[in-house]
Structure formats: C-alpha cells, structure tokens
C-alpha cells in the first residue's frame, strides 16, 4: 500500500449500527423543522427535556469508560449520533460536552474521575480554547498562577452558558500548556458575553476568566498531546455533524428539484441544476466515508499519524462539501432560497459555522501536506 494514500480501513460495529438507528429515530422525533425553528429564538438553543432524554440514553458517556459511568465504546460510537443530530440540525451541548471529557481524560486521567462522572451523568461541559480567531495559534494566552488563579479571556467558547465544567486551555508560570478545570458557576455573569453566531442553532460566548480560581489544574507531559487530540477529534465530530447536515440539505434540494416547475418542466430535469446536485451527493458520500474511516482509526490512546491524517481529511472534505451544498441550495431555490423562511438559510448558516470550527479546509490541507508529502 502506498504511503501517500495510507490506511483504507473502515469498520462499522454492531453498536455503531444500533446507535445510528436509534439516533436517527430520536432526532426525527425530537427535532422536526418546527422545533428547530422554535429553538433558534430561544436563549439556551436546545430543549432541556430532550437533553435529559439524551442523557438517559447514555450519550453523554458513550465514549467514557464504564468506571466513570460511561459505556466504554469510544469516540467511534458517537459518530452516528453526531451525524444524526447534524441531519436534524438538532441543537444540544453534546459535542462540547464530549470534547471536554476527551480533553480532560487525555490530559489528566483517573484522578479526574469525579469530573468525568459528572459528565457521563449529564452535566454539560465545554472547552475554552481560542484566544482569538486563529485556530493555528498556540492559544495558551490565559495564564494560570501557582494558586490556580486564571488571568485572561477566551473567545467563542461553545455552549458556555450551560457548562457545569469548563476546561480552559492556558499556560503556567513556566509557559507550559495546562488545562484548568473551572466550575461554570465560578464565572460571573458579567464575565460572559454571548455571541451572535451565524448558525442560529449554536451558542457560544466570550468568557473572561480573570480572577477565577480553578478547581484543579492539569499539567505535565500529557497535556500537549491531549490538546492536539482534542483539536483533531473536534475536527472529526464537526465533520460528522456536517455530513449529516449536508445530507439533509441535499434532500431538500432534491425535493425542490422534483416538484418545482419552470418553463413547463420540472427544474430537476435541467442538467445545469442536476449535475451540481450530483456533485454534492458524491462529495457527501466521500465525506461520510472519510468520517467513518477516521472513526475506525481512533482509540483511547494518543492519536496515531493515520488517525491524524484521517481526521484532517474528513474535516477538509466535509467542510468544502457542506459549503458547496449550502451555497447551491440557496441558489437552486431561486427567489424563495433568498428568504429567511426557506430552510436553505439554515443550511448555508450551518455550513458557514461548520467551516470555521477547528480550522477550515485550507487549515487542514496545509497540515496534511507535510504528513503526506514529506514522510
């Protein structure tokens, strides 16, 4: 097998299959279009009772070990769930919560049992990572002193308002990367400023942590690789969600092309519309293959080089595909596509949001280049 293409592994376990079935039905049932629209206007962006049901299904702990109340199925088991939520544009803090758990357990370990138990039990959590706009920066600008007191702020922290636990990426006095575990209740209301996001199903805030004392600070050898893995898994989960949203966007385009008539013909018979729609379809299938490939390459240990390549490829492809799908969806719906009422507006907004999470397609292709070409 050639080095440049590398692993072609794609596994799909029975558990993943069951989760895909259950999650699809759950999302279809709990997140119809009317509910998505209703939640756009809400402060929280998600339904508390639905979150409880999701917790009862065990989804906040799917990836976590049984010793902390999880199912021990790893990140792979979350992919079908996150993909399904993407398909239904379902707003929940699940991805933020899961990513916080991954960062904490990879940076810390068994000593963080209590925090992980909280998370698997349904307490929402999040990671405060960005200092500013640049996903490629070091992003350790928040300083953490010897007493665990933080100084500095973090940009665009997802689902911060709901988080019981916030894992803040920063640096200690020596300049080494640390992860400070902050209790959400310790961040005063006036230190939180919520953003007007382009995707109205999502929520994020800028948080000023100055003067906040961390409950605990994770430091040492494992922190740097844990942060790297958090960014890769974040890219993968964003890609999985994007694949789901792309498939819903595609279904919307296809429905319209099958029913809308112009010049006495169904517009789907025009190749100028049909062929780009086929390209969205093929891009969606390719993205989905890369997402499930990446999920086959990830385990609980530090991510391998194959896993890194897989996560970055999945994000690069899924981001470009959802961007194209959302863009064409607005265009192909014509005048209606230009309106707020048309669901194309939801998809193009999801696309724009998704592209900018965990680095856009160019960010990942740039990092793929040395992995693929200079090996």
């Amino acid at each position: 097998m050639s080095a440049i293409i590398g692993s072609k592994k794609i596994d799909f376990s029975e558990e993943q299959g069951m989760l895909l079935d259950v999650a699809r039905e759950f999302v279809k049932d709990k997140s119809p279009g009317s509910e998505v629209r209703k939640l756009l206007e809400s402060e929280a962006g998600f339904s508390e009772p639905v979150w409880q049901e999701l917790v009862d299904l065990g989804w906040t702990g799917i990836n976590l070990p049984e010793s902390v109340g999880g199912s021990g199925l790893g990140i792979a088991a979350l992919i079908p769930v996150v993909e399904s939520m993407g398909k239904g544009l379902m707003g929940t803090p699940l991805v933020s919560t899961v990513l916080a758990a991954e960062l904490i357990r990879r940076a810390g370990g068994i000593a963080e049992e209590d925090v992980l138990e909280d998370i698997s039990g349904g307490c929402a959590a999040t990671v405060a990572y960005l200092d500013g706009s640049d996903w490629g920066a070091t992003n350790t600008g928040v300083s953490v002193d010897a007493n665990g007191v933080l100084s500095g702020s973090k940009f665009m922290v997802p689902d911060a308002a709901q988080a019981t636990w916030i894992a803040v990426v920063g640096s200690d006095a020596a300049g080494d990367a640390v992860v400070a575990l902050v209790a959400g209740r310790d961040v005063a209301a006036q230190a939180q400023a919520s953003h007007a996001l382009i995707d109205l199903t999502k929520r994020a805030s800028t948080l000023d942590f100055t003067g906040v004392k961390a409950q605990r600070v994770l430091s040492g050898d494992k922190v740097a690789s844990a942060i790297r893995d958090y960014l890769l898994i974040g890219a993968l989960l964003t890609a999985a969600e994007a694949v789901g949203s792309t498939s819903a966007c595609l279904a919307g385009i296809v429905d319209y092309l099958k029913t809308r008539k112009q010049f006495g013909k169904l517009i789907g018979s025009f190749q100028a519309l049909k062929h780009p729609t086929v390209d969205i379809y093929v891009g969606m299938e390719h993205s989905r293959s890369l997402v499930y490939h990446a999920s086959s390459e990830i385990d609980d240990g530090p991510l391998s080089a194959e896993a890194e390549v897989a996560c970055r490829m999945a994000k690069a492809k899924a981001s470009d595909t959802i961007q194209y799908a959302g863009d064409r969806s607005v265009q192909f719906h014509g005048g209606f596509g230009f309106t707020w009422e048309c669901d194309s507006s939801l998809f193009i907004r999801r696309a724009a949001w998704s592209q900018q999470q965990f680095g856009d397609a160019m960010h990942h292709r740039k990092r793929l280049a040395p992995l693929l070409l200079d090996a």
Partner: protein
Amino acid sequence: MSATETSLQNFQADIDKWMSENIPNKPGFLLPLTFLEVGTEQQLDFLREWQHKLWSAGFLGMHWPTEYGGQGADPAYQGIVDKALGAHNAPIIFNTIGLNWTGPLLLDVGTEEDRKRYIKNILTGEEIWCQGFSEPDHGSDLGNVQTRAVRDDDEFIVNGSKIWTTLGNYADHMILLARTDTSTARKYDGLSFFLAPMKVAGVEARPIRKVTGEYGFNETFFTDARIPASCLLGDEGGGWRMAMKTLEYERGVIAGQASAHSMQSIGLEDLMYAMHDFERDGAPILEDAMIRDELVKLAIEAKANSISDRRASIPALNTDYPFGIALSNKYRHTEYARRLKMMGAHVQGAQGALFMDDDKAYMGGFWQRAYFANFGTTIGGGTTQIQANIIGEHVLGLPKS
C-alpha cells in the same frame, strides 16, 4: 479455494514471487497503457502471450467456474492477483471486452452452449472480443441504434456502422446491439443483442487515429454481413436489457469481471515520483505551496474514492442511497484519474509542452499521453455527463433530462 485469512496471506506471498519471476521485461517498443490503445500487431502478440501466461498459471478468471477455464476460487484471490499486477507494474491484460463484459454477461445470462463455446477462449486470449454499441451519429444515445439486422431464415443480414470499436481490427467476435424491428412503439423494444462473428464477409474494421496520435479504435462497417441467427443472446427484441446489463459490468456497478488489470494503473505514487525531477522558482517542486495543495486535494480524493468503494459493502452505511456508491464508480474514478494525469503534465514546466516523439519529452511524454488517453474512460461507456444523469435520476430520483 476458500478464502481464510491464512490461505489469502500465503497466496499473497506466492503471487508476489510469481510476479517478480514471470512478468516479462519491457519490450523494445511502447506498450499500451490501456486496452483502448492496442494499435500494432507487435503490441497485440506481446499482450496475447502475456495473458496466456497468466491464465496458464491459474491467475486469470480465478473465481470463474472450472468447467469454462476458471479456477472456481473465491473472488478474493483474483483481487489479490489484480492488486499484485498493479503493484508490479505488469503489462495490461488486454482482452477486456471479453474478460470483463462479455464473460460475466454470459456467466450471468448466457446459455450453457454459449459459455462452453466462448468463455475459455476469452480467458486464454485465443479469441478477442470487441463491442458494437455506439454509432457515428448516436454516441451516448444507445436507444437510437440504427444498425439493422434483418432475419433471413436462420441468419441475420446486418447493415450499418459502429464506431469506437476498441480492438475491432483484431477481434474474432463482437457484442453487437442492432435494430431488428423498426416498427415498435418504444425504440428500445426493437433492439436485439448478438454474439456476432467479425471474420465474415461484409464486416470491415477501419482503424481511427486518436488524439494521442495512436490507434486502437475502429469504425466498423457492416455491408450485407450474414451472421447465424444462433448468435442472438436472449430474445429477439430483448437487446436493450442485455446492453444495460453489459454496461453495468463495464462501469463496475456489478462484480464478476475476470481481471481488473485492463489499464496500467497510474496513481499518486507515480506522480510523487515525478516530483523528484522538477523545480519551481529554483527550488524542489515539492516545496511549492500551490503544488502541495493540489497534491493534497488529489490525495483526499483518492483516499475518499477507495474508502467509499469499501464502504459500499457495509449495508448499514448505505441505507439512504443503497446503490449510490456503485453507480457513481465510473464517475468518481475516471474523473479523478483525469485530474491526476493532467497534474502530471502541469508539474513539468516547459517540458509539459513536449509530446511523445520528442527525445527531450519527460518519460517519453508518459503523462501527456496518459492524460489524453484518459478521455477514453471519461467518454467511453457513457460519458461523465451521462453518468451524472444516471446518478441524478437513479440514485437521487431527479426527473429525466
């Protein structure tokens, strides 16, 4: 042969050894990159001998029944052989229209007599097959086939012409789609499918020179050519269904082909190899940011293509569009290959403007030739644009164009 993991691993080792000992040395003339480009007797003799050698060793049509010349083995074995042929850069297995389209079609829908008569000679290379579907005025529009076959007792008299007949000037038989009835309400119902002999009076194949400057295609003329009525495959008037089935084999929608090595595989690794030979802005070309991004895009596409092919065999991951990945096989792979080969010419700087006959051409113009030759795959067997219609209509359910 069943396919246990151990037996497959052992076989892999055996086949690698066999390949390194038996693949013929490069001859003193240029070999075709694909079965679409066999243009000289010299090339034909060489490739026929090579195919016979592979079959004699038991490595061709391994999963076809033993009574017709196969080995009755699990398809996984042929898969290993095909991969090894690619990995060892072996000459192509040229009798593709027999091996990959006609053979599986006959195993699928042919009579016992047809199978006995034709299949073994397809495998050995003793009989070459060509395909008579497209016509000069009806490229992708197969339903409009005008070549006439008129019944005359126990024969049909054929008149008309076919185009893009790959291997037509060497072929012994043609899978021929012809109109046996001009009065049907639906144009498709007037078509019939023949296993037609080529070496009869009134059949003439005239080679066509292609964009690469090479030969390989023909225009085939039928002038009162008489073929036995027993050549009919399926019912008279049932030709459209047979033709569509043939295209499914041709496009790789369904499996059963004798060997996938009908084209010399050219991949990203080959392109990477060329990277060592060029510079941009006075530095190694692999340091050029724009080139790097193009290569990464190709790598993502290549990986997504092959993982998608694998995903097609996991039903739980194909519930939304069950046959979409298979039906898009040709669309995805041939267009990727076109972009890859075009890139092979782009990286050469000014040398990319040289062609095969120039002694300064990089690798004898390999990439330029490969890029041009690739159009055979994006046009033949239903163009990319027809494939997009098929995917749009049959996978997504969009209205017909």
